[in-house]
């Protein structure tokens, strides 16, 4: 085995130019595939960030039934035993208590349904950086009897900071929840969906409004790694009261997940086409290499080299080239994608911006720098290349020494 490897290795360096060309075809294939995939994945990250990280959070805990009803009757007490479980889990870095319910918001002229959210201003600052989204006015304090209103909703009501807004909804056990609040600030979210329907007020005031002293409806958890959300949620489920439900972000924003899923399917078609083109590119180079070395192979077989051994050496050569090319490709792709990461493509035109906004994301195309994409694409290309390597293997096995030497 060692001998074959040595032979293959020496063959590679005997004709450096040929090796470099073949490696280059794998190298560029990896760059292209990675570029395409990371652009796609990057746009999904953008979508999830503008929705999940800025509002819903990656994991939420509610009373069973709340998610469907959004009713104050399904609220729960954030007690010490639950607190102990959360504090004991090192992956959970923080939490925000919220009360969230649907209510009508009204001014003298206009009425519109709104998502009214009572929250802890300090915790919100730490977790979703809500204070950075303030467009005009000021951030609210825990004891304020004032609200923050989404920019889209403010536009609809034609209100500005200092104006008053009336909230009308259903509180605990069907009581009427009605209140009148001054607007302290206007918030702008990456997701216009949120901007169009959110009203936020300090949790104390919300508990008073909905008549739910001491209970909350949502507990939003902060974690470091979004990809671990589902695993952490599953773990928590076993540890806390069975009357509570734990939901990870894919369940919290199913529409977004659907949208990403559909886009991915579409992406597979294009990726498949791209793989076809690049694999033929590699195949072409390998084919040329074979043609070029026919004479050499003929001589080797003529002087007694076993065809199977020769085929194996050639196979090893192609595999080595593919692996090297794929490996170098990872490093080649990094600066290309890094460039687009630092200088994201901004969707030109008003219409483009509007469309992206409708889907709740910022109108930029920024590729993902997730290392796993690089490795995955390099692996796929390397696998394709090693499948292609079967062709020279077979063709050397069938080699006729006399014909080969005559060419």
């Amino acid at each position, binding site marked *: 085995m060692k001998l074959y490897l040595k032979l293959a290795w020496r063959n590679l360096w005997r004709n450096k130019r040929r090796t470099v*060309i073949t490696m280059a075809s794998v190298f560029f294939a990896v760059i292209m595939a990675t570029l395409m995939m990371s652009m796609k994945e990057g746009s999904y990250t953008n979508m999830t960030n503008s929705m999940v990280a800025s509002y819903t959070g990656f994991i939420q805990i509610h009373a069973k039934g709340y998610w469907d009803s*959004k009713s104050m009757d399904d609220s729960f007490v954030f007690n010490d035993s639950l607190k102990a479980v959360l504090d004991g889990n090192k992956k959970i870095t923080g939490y925000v208590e919220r009360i969230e319910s649907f209510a009508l918001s009204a001014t003298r002229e206009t009425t519109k349904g709104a998502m009214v959210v009572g929250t802890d201003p300090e915790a919100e600052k730490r977790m979703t950086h809500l204070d950075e989204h303030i467009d005009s006015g000021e951030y609210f304090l825990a004891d304020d009897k004032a609200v923050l209103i989404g920019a889209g909703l403010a536009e609809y009501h034609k209100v500005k900071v200092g104006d008053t807004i009336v909230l009308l909804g259903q509180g605990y056990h069907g009581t009427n929840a009605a209140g009148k609040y001054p607007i302290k600030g206007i918030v702008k979210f990456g997701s216009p969906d949120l901007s169009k329907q959110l009203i936020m007020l300090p949790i104390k005031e919300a508990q008073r409004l909905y008549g739910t002293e001491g209970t909350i409806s949502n507990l939003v958890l902060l974690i470091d790694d979004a990809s671990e959300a589902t695993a952490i949620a599953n773990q928590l489920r076993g540890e806390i009261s069975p009357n509570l439900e734990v939901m990870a972000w894919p369940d919290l924003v199913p529409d977004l997940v659907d949208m990403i899923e559909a886009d991915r399917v579409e992406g597979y078609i294009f990726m498949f086409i791209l793989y076809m083109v690049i694999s033929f590119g590699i195949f072409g180079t390998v084919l040329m290499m074979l043609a070029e070395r026919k004479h050499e192979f003929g001589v080797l077989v003529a002087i007694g080299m076993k065809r199977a051994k020769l085929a194996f050496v050639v196979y090893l050569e192609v595999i080595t080239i593919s692996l090297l090319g794929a490996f170098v490709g990872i490093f080649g792709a990094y600066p290309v994608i890094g460039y687009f990461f630092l200088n994201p493509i901004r969707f030109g035109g008003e219409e483009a911006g509007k469309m992206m906004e409708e889907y709740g994301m910022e109108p930029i195309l920024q590729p993902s720098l997730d290392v796993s994409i690089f490795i995955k694409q390099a692996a796929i290309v390397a696998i394709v290349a090693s499948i292609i390597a079967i062709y020279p293997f077979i063709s050397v096995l069938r080699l006729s020494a006399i014909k080969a030497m005559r060419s």
Partner: protein
Amino acid sequence: MLTKIAWRNIWRNKIRSLVVIIALALGLWAGAFSSAFYEGMMKQRINDVIESEMSHFQFHEPNFREELQAKYFISGAESIEADMASAPHVIGSTGRVVATAMMGSANKNGAAKLIGVDPEKEKVVTKLNEKLIEGDYFESVSRNPILISQKMAESFHVKLKSKLVLTVQDLNGEIVASSFRVVGIYKSGNGMLDEVNAYVRRSDLPSIMSLDAQDYHEIAVLLDNHDLAEPMAAEYQEKYPNLEVKSWLDLATGMRYMVEAGSTFAYVIVGIILIALLFSIINTMLMAVMERTREIGMLMAVGFNKRKVFMMIMLETVFLSMIGGPLGLLVAFLFIQATGTNGIDLGAMGETYNELGFSAIVYPELALESYINITVMVFAMAILAAIYPARKALKLNPSEAIRKI
């Protein structure tokens, strides 16, 4: 003479030529098919938008779409309806009363868009009756029937004959509540619309919202030809300057963008594919030149100057493109025709497609113009790809080149 040498060179080494020809044909197929797939997807979406959502154009009071208040109704709706009844190319038109509402069941309160329709006319314009999956079309409930989506039925925990309370703002801005009974449950192709749209009889709304029977917020018109939507909208905008007349391109957010700039997306993808093709051709041609070191050295030794060698290799590429190009076009055309007739079912890969208003089956199709664009791009790519290897050939030193095996 040069042409003849180049032509013969191609056929002397068939494997090499075949590799380049197939790479070119494959690149052309890949570019054309990606575009066709994208165009097919867009077309599907456009048809869905027109046929089941927006129709071809709509009339509104200029403030209505922005503010959605009952007081912004269309005045003079009768004359518009009369116009539409006699206009050519109009398949149907229907007036609607639209209100944002808060919908409440025993379990949940949530936002809804309440749409008052004329059941008979709506059948013609949006085929609402064909979207029913349960119950019937405003028939079995005599007082205040309402059609809700399957999604709403699930989230509000209601079924047929359940009661729903709808709270809306009336003409004077007062908040009024009224109860409706579920007569049917529908499911349209578009999950986002299913989230909010609830349909009632238009005739039930005037008494609730203090409107007159002829006060519509929206008149939707369906034509027999997509291309007429824009010009006809413009024509009626001129005739009714006090109203807003807009085609589907402006009504559905992002549609104009999707149609006008959407092909850029396809070109980005085609671009990446073509660059991949560029590198694969460069590599193959480079191999070809290296392999022919001896032969090219010989040509130079017998008096071929550098310009001639360069021209010869470029000419070979042109010949190869002229064979690979049409071959690729033919394959692409047949492939697009075949998939375009049978459709490609994405449903097998993702069930979520319908949720977004995209049909799960895509019928790829490509306009003649796009075929030409892609062919030109692939040819340009092939010529570009040949320059580097051809330059490499120039750098060969004849005496050294001949010595090489």
